[in-house]
C-alpha cells in the first residue's frame, strides 16, 4: 500500500461510521439488484427450459367433442409443427374426509416426447401404457398431492356422470401449462386443497370419461415463420362442426399469464429499485468527497506544491468512492445471493417448476459489480474534479468565506429579525449547503416513500379482505353443481338442519363480441332479491344487478372498449347443448378486487339459454356452529362438484398473502438503512465542518446538550420537511408500483390507511433521531484544545 493508500485507509478508519453508512446504501442497492436479477434469471431460465423441453403449445382450441381423426386434418396444415389432441374435463373429487374438490382431468398419449405440453415426472412412477388393474392410474400435480397428504398407492375418488370412480395415484408430475394451478381466472388464488390436476393415460381417460376415440382439446405448435392467423382460421374451420367453444393463444393461457406477469413485474423493479439506491449512494459519495476535498484544501495545496499532479490527487480521492463501492458490492453480492436463494424458494412454493432454480448467475454478479463500481467511480471523479481547480498558492491562504450571499430569509428583514441567533445560524448553514440539504431531503423523501409502499401492501390486502370477505359476500357456504339444475331443487338444501337461507346463481361462460373484438367472460347470474353478495361499481359504490342488461367487469370493458349504454353480443360457451346468442346492453361497470366476471340477472340469463329457473350453484347462510355439519351433509350429495366455505377461502387467501410479509419487512429494512445512512452522513458532515464553531461554543460555556440541540434543529428542519414530502410522494409511487405489477388477473387498490401515513412518518422520525444520536456522539469527546489549534 502506497503512502496515499495509507492516508486514505486512516481517513476511513477515523470516519468509519460515515464510510460504513454509505457502503450500506450501496450494499442495499446491490442486494436488491443481485437478488432480483438472479431471481428473474432463475425463474425465466427455468420457464424457458421447461417450455422448450416439454413442448409448450402455442395455441389452444376447445371443442365440445370431436373424433380423434380430426387431428390428421390439422396435422397436415402447412405451418403446423406439432399437434396434440386430448381430453380435458373437470370432475368432482370426493376426498376421504368427504369434502369436495375439483379434478382437472387431462389425458396424455404415450410415448410423450413428441406431444405438446408433455409431463415431467416429479415423484413416483409414470402411469403404465397397458393397465390391467382394476383402478386407473393417475399422476397428480405435486401441490395437490402434498396439500392432501397423498402417497403413492393411495386411492382417489372422482365422480363421473353420477358414478364414483376410483383412481390409483402412482406419482406426481408437472407440465408447462400447470406451473400455476388455478381453476380459472375468476379464482385469482390457487387452492390446492380444492383443485388439482389429474393426469391420465389417454385410453384410460377415454374409458373413464366415456369418450371412446374422442377428444375435446386440440393444441398446436407453429413452425417458425408460419402464417399463424391463417392456420388458426383453418383449424377453426376444421373444428367448427364439433362445437368450437374457445380458442386462445399461449399468452392467454392462465398459468403462463400468471408466471409471465410475475416475471414482468420482477423485471420492471430489477433496475428501478437498485438504481434509486445506487443513485442516492452516488450522491452521498459525491457530497462526502466534495466536502473532503474542501476540508483538505491546504493538504491538496501542499501535495501540489510538492509536485503531485492533479491526476494522482484526484485518483486518491476517487479511491474513497471506489473503496465504498467495493465493500458495498462485495457485501451486497453475498447477501443478495442469499436473498435470491430464499426468493427462489418462495417461488418454488407457488410454481410447479422443475428443480434447480438456485443457479448463481455470474452475469448478474458481474453487472452488479460494474454497476456499483462505475457509479462510485463516476461520483468520485466528478466530486474530486474540484481538485484541479485548487490553486496551490491560494490553497495556503485561509479560505475566503463561502457564498457570502444572503439566504432567502435574510432578505425578509421583518421575519429575520424575529429569529433567535440559534435559528439564524441554522438557516444560514442550510443556505450555505444547499446541495447537501437537497440530498438529505431527497434521501428522507425516498426512505419515507419506501416505508409507505411497504406498509401500503398490507393496507391494500387488508382492504381487499374486508371488502371481499366481509362486505362483498356474506354467505357461509358456496356450492357448485355438476350440471345446471332447477332452482326448486334447492329446496332440499333449504330444508337441511341449520340452513337459514339459500340463494341460487348461475355461472354462464360466454364470448362477448363488440365491434369485431371478442372477449371470453364468465357471466355471474344472481336473482333480483340477492342478499348474500354485494357488487361494487367502478368507483366502489354498491350497485344492484339490473333486471335487464349486464354489469360488465372494468377490465373486460377496457379490453373491448365498451362503455355504459353500448350494446354487445353474447355467445354462450356451455360444453353441452346448443350455442345461444343474444344482445344485451351494458348497464354499468363493476370493480372486482379478486377474480373477474360480469353480472347479469338470473332470469335474464335463463332467457339467453331459452330456459327458466336454471341454476349452477347456490350460496347458503347457515346458523353459527352448524357450518361444518351442513358442509359434510352437502358433500354427501352426488350432484355437488364443489363446496367452498367462506372461512376456508379466507384462510387460503391469508396463506397466499403470507409471503408478502416477507417482502414488506425487507422493504422496511431497506428504507431504514437508506434513511439512516443519509441522515447520519449529513449530520456527521455538518458536525465535522463545524467542529471549530462547536468547540468555540463549548469554550464560551454552551453545554454539550445545548450544542447538540442546535445541530438537531438543523437536522430536523430538513428531515421533517423530507418526511412531509415523502408522504404524498409515497402515495404517488405506490400508484405507479401498482400499475407496474397489476396484471389481467389482479390488481391492488391504492388504499393507504391514515395509520400507515402516521407509521411511515414516525418511522422516518425514528431513523432521523437515531442517526442524529449516532452522529453527535463525537460532541462529548471533542478535544477543544486540539480542534481550535489544528488548521485541518
Amino acid at each position, binding site marked *: 500500500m*502506497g*503512502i*496515499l493508500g*495509507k*492516508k486514505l485507509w*486512516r*481517513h476511513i478508519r*477515523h470516519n468509519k461510521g460515515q464510510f460504513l453508512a454509505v457502503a450500506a446504501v450501496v450494499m442495499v442497492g446491490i442486494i436488491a439488484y443481485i437478488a432480483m436479477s438472479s431471481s428473474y434469471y432463475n425463474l425465466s431460465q427455468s420457464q424457458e427450459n421447461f417450455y422448450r423441453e416439454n413442448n409448450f403449445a402455442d395455441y389452444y382450441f376447445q371443442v365440445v367433442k370431436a373424433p380423434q381423426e380430426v387431428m390428421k386434418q390439422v396435422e397436415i396444415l402447412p405451418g403446423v409443427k406439432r399437434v396434440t389432441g386430448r381430453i380435458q374435463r373437470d370432475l368432482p373429487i370426493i376426498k376421504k374426509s368427504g369434502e369436495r374438490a375439483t379434478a382437472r382431468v387431462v389425458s396424455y398419449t404415450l410415448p410423450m416426447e413428441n406431444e405438446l405440453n408433455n409431463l415431467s415426472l416429479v415423484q413416483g412412477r409414470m402411469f403404465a401404457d397397458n393397465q390391467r388393474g382394476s383402478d386407473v392410474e393417475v399422476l397428480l400435480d405435486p401441490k395437490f398431492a402434498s396439500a392432501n397428504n397423498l402417497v403413492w398407492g393411495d386411492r382417489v375418488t372422482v365422480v363421473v356422470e353420477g358414478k364414483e370412480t376410483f383412481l390409483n395415484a402412482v406419482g406426481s408430475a408437472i407440465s408447462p401449462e400447470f406451473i400455476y394451478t388455478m381453476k380459472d381466472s375468476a379464482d385469482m388464488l390457487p387452492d390446492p386443497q380444492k383443485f388439482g390436476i389429474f393426469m391420465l393415460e389417454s385410453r384410460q381417460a377415454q374409458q373413464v370419461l366415456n369418450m371412446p376415440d374422442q377428444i375435446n382439446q386440440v393444441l398446436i405448435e407453429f413452425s417458425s415463420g408460419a402464417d399463424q392467423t391463417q392456420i388458426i382460421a383453418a383449424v377453426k374451420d376444421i373444428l367448427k362442426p364439433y362445437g368450437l367453444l374457445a380458442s386462445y393463444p399461449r399468452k392467454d393461457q392462465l398459468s403462463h399469464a400468471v408466471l409471465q406477469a410475475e416475471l414482468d413485474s420482477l423485471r420492471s423493479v430489477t433496475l428501478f429499485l437498485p438504481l434509486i439506491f445506487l443513485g442516492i449512494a452516488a450522491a452521498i459519495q459525491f457530497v462526502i468527497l466534495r466536502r473532503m476535498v474542501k476540508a483538505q484544501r*491546504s*493538504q491538496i*495545496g*501542499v*501535495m*501540489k*506544491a*510538492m*509536485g*503531485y*499532479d*492533479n491526476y494522482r490527487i484526484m485518483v486518491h480521492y476517487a479511491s474513497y468512492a471506489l473503496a465504498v463501492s467495493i465493500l458495498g458490492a462485495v457485501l451486497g453480492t453475498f447477501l443478495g445471493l442469499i436473498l435470491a436463494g430464499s426468493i427462489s424458494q418462495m417461488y418454488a412454493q407457488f410454481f410447479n417448476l422443475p428443480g434447480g432454480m438456485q443457479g448463481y448467475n455470474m452475469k448478474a454478479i458481474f453487472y452488479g459489480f460494474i454497476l456499483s463500481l462505475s457509479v462510485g467511480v463516476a461520483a468520485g471523479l466528478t466530486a474530486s474534479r474540484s481538485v484541479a481547480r485548487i*490553486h*496551490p*498558492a491560494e490553497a*495556503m491562504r485561509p479560505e475566503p468565506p463561502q457564498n457570502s450571499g444572503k439566504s432567502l430569509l435574510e432578505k425578509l428583514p421583518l421575519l429575520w429579525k424575529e429569529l433567535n441567533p440559534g435559528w439564524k445560524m441554522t438557516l444560514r448553514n442550510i443556505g450555505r449547503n444547499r446541495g447537501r440539504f437537497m440530498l438529505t431531503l431527497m434521501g428522507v423523501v425516498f426512505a419515507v416513500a419506501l416505508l409507505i409502499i411497504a406498509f401500503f401492501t398490507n393496507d391494500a390486502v387488508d382492504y381487499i379482505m374486508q371488502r371481499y370477505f366481509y362486505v362483498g359476500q356474506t354467505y357461509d357456504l358456496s356450492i357448485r353443481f355438476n350440471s345446471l339444475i332447477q332452482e326448486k331443487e334447492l329446496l332440499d338444501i333449504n330444508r337441511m338442519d341449520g340452513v337459514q337461507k339459500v340463494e341460487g346463481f348461475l355461472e354462464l361462460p360466454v364470448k362477448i363480441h363488440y365491434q369485431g373484438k371478442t372477449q371470453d367472460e364468465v357471466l355471474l347470474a344472481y336473482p333480483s332479491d340477492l342478499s348474500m353478495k354485494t357488487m361494487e361499481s367502478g368507483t366502489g359504490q354498491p350497485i344492484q344487478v339490473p333486471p335487464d342488461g349486464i354489469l360488465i367487469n372494468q377490465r373486460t370493458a377496457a379490453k373491448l372498449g365498451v362503455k355504459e349504454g353500448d350494446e354487445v353480443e353474447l355467445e354462450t360457451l356451455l360444453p353441452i347443448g346448443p350455442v345461444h346468442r343474444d344482445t344485451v346492453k351494458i348497464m354499468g361497470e363493476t370493480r372486482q378486487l379478486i377474480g373477474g366476471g360480469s353480472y347479469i340477472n338470473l332470469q335474464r340469463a335463463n332467457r339467453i339459454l331459452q330456459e327458466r329457473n336454471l341454476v349452477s350453484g347456490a350460496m347458503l347462510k347457515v346458523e353459527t356452529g352448524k357450518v361444518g355439519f351442513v358442509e359434510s351433509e352437502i358433500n354427501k350429495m352426488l350432484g355437488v362438484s364443489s363446496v367452498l366455505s367462506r372461512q376456508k377461502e379466507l384462510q387460503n387467501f391469508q396463506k397466499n398473502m403470507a409471503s408478502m410479509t416477507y417482502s414488506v419487512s425487507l422493504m422496511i429494512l431497506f428504507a431504514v438503512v437508506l434513511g439512516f445512512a443519509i441522515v447520519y452522513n449529513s449530520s456527521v458532515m455538518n458536525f465535522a465542518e463545524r467542529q471549530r464553531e462547536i468547540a468555540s461554543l463549548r469554550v464560551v460555556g454552551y453545554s454539550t446538550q445545548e450544542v447538540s440541540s442546535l445541530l438537531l434543529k438543523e437536522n430536523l428542519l430538513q428531515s421533517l420537511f423530507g418526511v412531509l414530502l415523502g408522504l404524498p410522494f409515497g402515495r404517488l409511487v405506490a400508484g405507479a408500483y401498482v400499475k407496474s405489477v397489476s396484471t389481467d388477473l389482479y390488481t391492488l387498490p391504492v388504499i393507504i390507511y391514515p395509520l400507515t401515513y402516521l407509521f411511515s412518518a414516525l418511522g422516518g422520525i425514528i431513523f432521523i433521531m437515531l442517526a442524529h444520536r449516532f452522529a453527535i456522539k463525537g460532541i462529548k469527546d471533542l478535544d477543544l484544545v*486540539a480542534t481550535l489549534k*489544528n*488548521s*485541518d
Partner: protein
Amino acid sequence: MQRNILMKLERVSKTYDMGEVKVEALKESSLDIYAGELLVILGPSGSGKSTLLNIMGGMDLPSSGEIFFGDENLSQASEEILTRYRRNQVGFVFQFYNLIQDLTARENVELAAHLVKNPLSIEGILREVGLAERIDHFPSQMSGGEQQRVSIARAVVKNPRLLLCDEPTGALDYQTGILILGLLRKINQDKGCTVVLITHNTAIGEMGDRVVRMRSGEIFSITENQNPLSPERIEW
C-alpha cells in the same frame, strides 16, 4: 567572486483581478538568485513576499515579466511543466507546516520522497532534523517546532536545488524559531541547497548572505551581508 545564477526574475509583475478592484501584488520586480546562497526576503505583511516566492516556486505564474530557472523559461509554463519543476527542483516550507494529519512523520516525508528518482534517506533526514525519536508519531502528537522540522525534512528529502521557506518561524516561539533557522542554514551549507527565506522579522535578515527588502509589491533594496550572523546569535 564568480557566482552562478540559479534563477532569474526580470520585471515580474502579478496582478490579482478581484472583479471591481485589481490588486497589484507585485510590480516589475527583478532579481537574480545565486546558486548556493541563503537569501532572506524582508518586508511587512502584504508587501508581496509570498507572491514573489510562489512565482519562484512555480506555484503561480506572473502576469507579466520573465522568469528563468537555469535555461528554462517558466514565465508561460504549462501546468505539467510547473508540476515537474516543483517535483524535481523545489522544496517548500510553510508557516503552518501543513503536514498531512493522517500520516506519521516518516510517512509525511515518504510522501515527498516517492515523487523523485533519487531521494535522500528518509530516516537519515529525519535524524538530521533531530526527530529520530519521533519518527512514527502523528503531527497531532508533536509540538509546532517538531512539526516544522518534519516539514523541512519533507521539503529536503527530494534533494531540491531550491528550498523556499515562507515565514517558517512565523508560528513558533523565539527559541524554537532559532533552532529552525539554524537547521536551514545547516542544510544550505551541507547540501549546497539554495535557500530563500521569507520573513517580516528584520532581525532574521542578518543571517542571510543577501537581503531583499520589499514594500508594497516592490523590491526597494538588495543588500549583501559581508558577514552573515550565525542564527544562534540573532536576537529579537
